[in-house]
């Protein structure tokens, strides 16, 4: 099993909501020949991912963030398992997915979320100018976190970056 799992999620048909998906596609190319890194692009997080997450040494989630971040800004933070009380059960957030990994498989790895501030989730394939400019920085951020993890250092420093492309 891969020791590092990257999951970019969002709707590829809803403008900037696709940033996680597009970052995952770019990272898939970067790590195509690296058996220790597995990259998923997904519409949403779901319980079927719990086993993969439980067996990983580190998980990085990439998601669009509305309202809390300016468009194109990137925020990285650690994420921890949390209680879940959702009535819906085939769509999760990162803390709930981590908690499900513990409930179902007895473990969950260190994890972080890279959030990207977005401009618009209107229908369409294209990212806004700001979010498009953030895409290479998201990829670089993930690569750096993976390198830090591999060197045994703290792999996430919580921060926000205003990206200048």
């Amino acid at each position: 099993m891969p020791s590092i799992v990257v999951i970019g999620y969002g709707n590829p048909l809803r403008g900037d909501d696709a940033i996680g998906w597009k970052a995952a596609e770019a990272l898939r190319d970067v790590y195509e020949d690296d058996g220790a890194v597995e990259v998923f692009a997904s519409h949403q997080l779901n319980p079927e991912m719990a086993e993969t997450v439980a067996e990983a040494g580190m998980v990085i989630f990439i998601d669009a963030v509305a309202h809390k971040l300016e468009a194109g800004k990137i925020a990285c933070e650690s994420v921890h398992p949390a209680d879940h009380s959702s009535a819906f059960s085939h769509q999760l957030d990162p803390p709930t997915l981590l908690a499900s990994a513990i409930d179902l498989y007895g473990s969950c790895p260190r994890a972080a979320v890279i959030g990207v501030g977005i401009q618009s989730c209107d229908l369409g394939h294209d990212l806004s100018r700001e979010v498009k400019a953030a895409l290479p920085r998201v990829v670089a951020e993930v690569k750096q976190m993976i390198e830090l993890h591999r060197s045994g250092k703290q792999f996430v420093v919580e921060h926000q970056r205003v990206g200048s492309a």
Partner: protein
Amino acid sequence: MQTVVIDPVTRIEGHSKITIQLDDHGMVQDAHFHVTQFRGFEKLCEGRPFYEMPALMARICGICPVSHLIASAKACDAILAVRIPETAEKLRRIMNLAQIVQSHALSFFHLSSPDFLLGMDSDPAKRNIFGVAAHSPELARDGVRLRKFGQEIIELLGGKRIHPAWVVPGGVSEPLKVEYRDQILKSIPEAKDIVVRSLGWFKRQLENFREEIRTFANFPSMFMALTKDDGNLAFYKGWLRLVDADGEIVQDHIDPADYEEYIGEAVEPSSYLKSPYYKPMGYPKGMYRVGPLARLNMAKRCGTPLADQELAEFRELERRFVLSSFYYHYARLIEALFAVEKIEAYLEEPEILGKHVRAYAGPNNYNGVGVSEAPRGTLIHNYKIDESGLIKHANLIIATGHNNLAMNRGVLQVAKHFIKGRTIPEGILNRVEAVIRCYDPCLSCSTHAMGQMRLHLQLVDDEGKLLSEVKR
């Protein structure tokens, strides 16, 4: 009189509400299931080229896109007037069965097992798949693994789990790779073990649900499903058959292309979900049920060893046609077992690796009908095109729609049995929702709309005044 409204209905796919009318003594007079979402796919596809339909129609739903792909592609095959290659048909059948497994796993484990494991009256905050995981991790793991099994087959065949575009008019776009066949075959034993284990567990729970079995949409009705020439279980191809509650054939050998002669669609002002009915009996007398319970009631045999053993036991439940909708859950597991066995059988046939998987033609008919059995029941796609091959008219009849009249009657039956007075405990509300869950309705599909299902229950008096309300 007062009305109870459950809004939204939870642990189903889509948005709906339930209203229950009580008389002055707090006794239930009437009850209705309302679907509150709408998207209108039939209209928005007008003017598009017919060959776009499978990919477009699959977008109706994120849970059962494969079912729409199959029915839509079959309607396009009819427009092309082609007989698709044998390998392509078998590959489509495998994908359809994988869809049955993943959807039934979602319904049984993720949506309904919290009621079976934790009880109808348990804490609603824990009555979900996470509560199941905390209480019985093995059961939850089985649900996750079984759904993943189906999803992975869909992904291997179609390139992705949701909205694969691999099923096309005339066949499929790519043959099956040897390594993918081997990968799927390797995962069969585990999937089979999970379903057999789950069937054993569920059968042991039945004793705890005698009252629900007796009252959950347990009434005589007709049933409809595709049936093979030999009377065995059919999911991809066959004749439509209707039988009554005693198993007597009402109408047999209906060519799916002639569905309009036999199925009418009534519209009620309080719901976006239409109410199909058997035309010769009129509306609403022509109520029938579709889906796992209908298919197993009607099937002579499943056609695979383990599923046939289970079917024999299932038939002993009531020593005649099984009428309680609570047994939809049981039927779902038997169908999942059949699907796993049948996928294995298809994959072991040498021609499954054949390279000829698509027939090509231009439009040869102006009208095409495609029918298949989706997880929730019979699915009908009908397209009419103009001389340029553009869609002039589309009509979709979805499994959940077929069951609309029965769901409404089921809600009334449960409400009448369990609601006594104006104060309604949460566990009783859950039972009113649970009768809907038996049918595993997919409202995104049935109104061709998007969204998740929520629940809204209102209690109103005989003048329509709202007395109390519960929303989730």
